[in-house]
C-alpha cells in the first residue's frame, strides 16, 4: 500500500486518536485483506474499495488495544464490555455464558485476540460472535461427552418409527421410512440459501427478522421465500414418493394421510439437526414467552 493511501485510511479510522503506529495499522489492513481475498490477488481498485468498506475506526481501536494503549483500552472497556456481557446474558439467561465472557475479556486484556479482528464487522458484532462461538463449541463438546440414550425397544426398526402406531396397518412402517427418505432427499436437494432459511426457521427457531439479518433480506422476503420453499418441498416429496419409492398415486395419498394422522413418527430432529434442548435454552424459551 502506498503511503498516501495508508495516510488516508489512517485518517478515516481516526487512528491518531490512539496514537496507533502507522506500520501496525498497515499490518492490520494487510491481515484483513489477506483473509478476505484468501487464495487470490486483488486488483488495486478492489483493494481500495475493500479497505473503504471496513469498520476502520473499530479496526484502529483494536490495533490500539492490541498495542496496549491505555486510553484505547479504557474506551473499549467503557463502550464494548457491556455489549460483551449483554451478549452472554442473551445467549444464556441463567448466566451460564458469563464465565465465557469473563474468559474472553481476560484474553482481550492480554491483547492477543485483537489481531483476529479484521474490521469486516463492527467490533461489537465481532465480540458477540466470539462469545457465541465459544458457547456453541462448548455446548457441542459437552453434548459429545453426554452418554448415549438407551436403546429403544425394538431397536432394529427404521429410524423415527414409534411403537405407538405399530399396530395400525401393515404399510405404516413402509410409509414412514419412505417419507423420511424422500424428505431427507428433498432437503438435501434444496439450494443452500433455501436450506439455510428453512433450518434457521424450523430447526433453530429464529424469527423472520433474525433470519433476514443473516440472509440480508427483509422479513417479508424471508417469509415469501420460506413459503416458496415449502411449496417446492411438497411437490418434491410427492414426486419422489412416486419416482424413487415406486408409490402409486393412491399410495402417495395414503402415505401422506398416514403421516398427517400421526405427525410424531418421523425422526424430525435428525432431519433438521435439532439438538437436545439445554437448560439454558429452556430458560430462554420461558423468558421469550
Amino acid at each position, binding site marked *: 500500500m502506498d503511503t498516501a493511501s495508508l495516510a488516508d485510511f489512517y485518517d478515516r479510522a481516526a487512528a491518531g486518536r490512539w496514537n496507533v503506529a502507522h506500520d501496525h495499522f498497515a499490518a492490520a489492513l494487510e491481515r484483513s485483506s489477506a483473509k478476505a481475498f484468501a487464495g487470490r490477488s486483488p486488483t488495486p481498485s478492489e483493494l481500495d474499495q475493500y479497505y473503504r468498506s*471496513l*469498520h476502520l475506526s473499530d479496526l484502529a481501536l483494536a490495533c490500539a488495544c492490541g498495542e496496549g494503549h491505555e486510553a484505547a483500552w479504557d474506551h473499549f*472497556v*467503557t463502550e464494548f*464490555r*457491556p*455489549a460483551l*456481557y*449483554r*451478549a452472554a*446474558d*442473551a*445467549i444464556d439467561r441463567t448466566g451460564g455464558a458469563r464465565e465465557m465472557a469473563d474468559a474472553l475479556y481476560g484474553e482481550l486484556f492480554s491483547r492477543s485476540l485483537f489481531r483476529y*479482528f479484521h474490521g*469486516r*464487522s463492527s467490533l461489537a*458484532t465481532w465480540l*458477540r*460472535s466470539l462469545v*457465541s*462461538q465459544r458457547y*456453541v*463449541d462448548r455446548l457441542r463438546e459437552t453434548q459429545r461427552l453426554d452418554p448415549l440414550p438407551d436403546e429403544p425397544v425394538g431397536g432394529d426398526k427404521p429410524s423415527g418409527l414409534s411403537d405407538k402406531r405399530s399396530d395400525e396397518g401393515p404399510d405404516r412402517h413402509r410409509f414412514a421410512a419412505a417419507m423420511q427418505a424422500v424428505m431427507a432427499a428433498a432437503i438435501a436437494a434444496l439450494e*443452500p*440459501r433455501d436450506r*439455510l432459511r428453512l*433450518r434457521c426457521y424450523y430447526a*433453530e*427457531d*429464529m*424469527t*423472520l427478522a*433474525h433470519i433476514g*439479518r*443473516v440472509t440480508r*433480506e427483509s*422479513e*417479508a*422476503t424471508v*417469509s*415469501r421465500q420460506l413459503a416458496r420453499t*415449502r411449496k*417446492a*418441498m411438497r*411437490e418434491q416429496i*410427492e414426486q419422489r414418493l*412416486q419416482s424413487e419409492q415406486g408409490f402409486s*398415486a393412491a399410495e402417495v395419498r395414503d402415505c*401422506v*394421510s398416514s403421516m*398427517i*394422522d400421526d*405427525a*410424531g413418527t418421523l425422526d424430525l430432529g435428525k*432431519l*433438521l439437526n435439532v439438538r437436545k434442548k439445554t437448560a439454558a*435454552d429452556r430458560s430462554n*424459551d420461558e423468558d*421469550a*414467552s
Partner: protein
Amino acid sequence: MNTDRNHLDAETVAAWIDGGLDSASLAAAEAHASNCERCQELLATVSRTMPATGVVTTTGSLKAASISAVWWRWWMAPIAATAAAVTLWMVVPQERLQQVATAPPPKVAAPAEPAAGARARDEAAPSMAQATEPRRRSPGEGGAARANEQFSEDKRKAEEAPREAQQKPQASQEKLGAAAANVADADAAKDRRDNKAEDRFARVEAEPARAPAAPPAAAAPAESAATIGNAITQLRKQAAPLVIVSPDPRYRWRATSDGIDFSVDGGRTWLPVRLPQGEVVTGGASPAPLSCWLVGRRGLVLVATDGTNFTRIPFPETVDLASVSSPELRIAIVTTADGRTFRTENAGRAWRQQ
C-alpha cells in the same frame, strides 16, 4: 450433514451478519452453513445476541408447537398454511397426483372442482398454480410492494385457516382438518409473533423524520399520544444515551439502544442490566444511590433498589410514559406522553392521577 473442520470462524460470521462479506465469500459461507449444524447454531446464537432494532423483540423457541407440528405444517401446508387448503389437497388430490405420475409438472392451475368448499378452493388454487411455477425466482422479484402484499396475504390466510378448517362439512375430512388446524394454529402463533414484530417495524419505519420534540410539560397541548410517542421513539433513536445520575454521582444508569447499563464508578465502566426483552426506556429518576425508577413505552414502570435488579410495577394505563421524578423511593411522579401525571406514594402499589 457437513462434518468437515472448516467451520465458519467468529470473524467471518460477524462479517456475514454485518454485511462485510463479498458475494463469493457469502456464497461459500451460505453453502457451508446450510449443511453444517454447528454453524447454523452459531448463526442462531449470534442473532440472539444482536440488539433489538426497535422491532425485533422475541427470540427463542416457539413453546406452543412441537417440532413435529411445525415440521408438518410447513411440509404439508401450502403458502398460506391454511388448514382448509391442506384438507382440500389431501382429500381431492387425484387429478394432480395423476398428472404428477404421468407427466412433467403441469403448466396450468388447479383443476376445476365441485362447488362445495368454494372458498377453500379459491385459496388452494393459487397455491397449486404457484407450485407449477419455475422453481427459482430471484429474492427481489416483484419488488417491495409485491413482497409486502404477499406477506399481508399470507397473514390473512393464516388467520383464517383455523376458521376454515372448522367449517368443513365432510365427515371424512374432519380428522385431517383438525390435525391440520392444530398445525396451522401452532404456526400461526409463530407467524403472529413475527408479524407483530414486522408491524412494529413498519410503524417505526413509517414515522416521518422530524425535529426532536421537547418532552411534554404537565400542561401539554392536545397533541395525540401517538404523535408524542413517536417523537419519543425518534428522540430515543437520535439522542445521546439517557443517563440517570443518583444523588451519589458514582452510581448512575444509562439507557442505550442495547438496553440499560449501570455504573458504580461515575461512568468509567458500565455493566449491563437485565430488563424484560424489548422494553424501551424513555425516562428515569434516582432518589437514592442504588435506587432507580425507569419508565417507558406502554405503561412500563420499573424500579430497582440494588442498582441492577429491576422489578416491573403495574401502571394503571397502557400508555406511553415520558418521564418520572422521584424525591424518595416510595414516591414517584410519572408523566405520560399525553401530558397527564400519576403519583404513587407507596412504591407503586397504588397510583393516583393528578
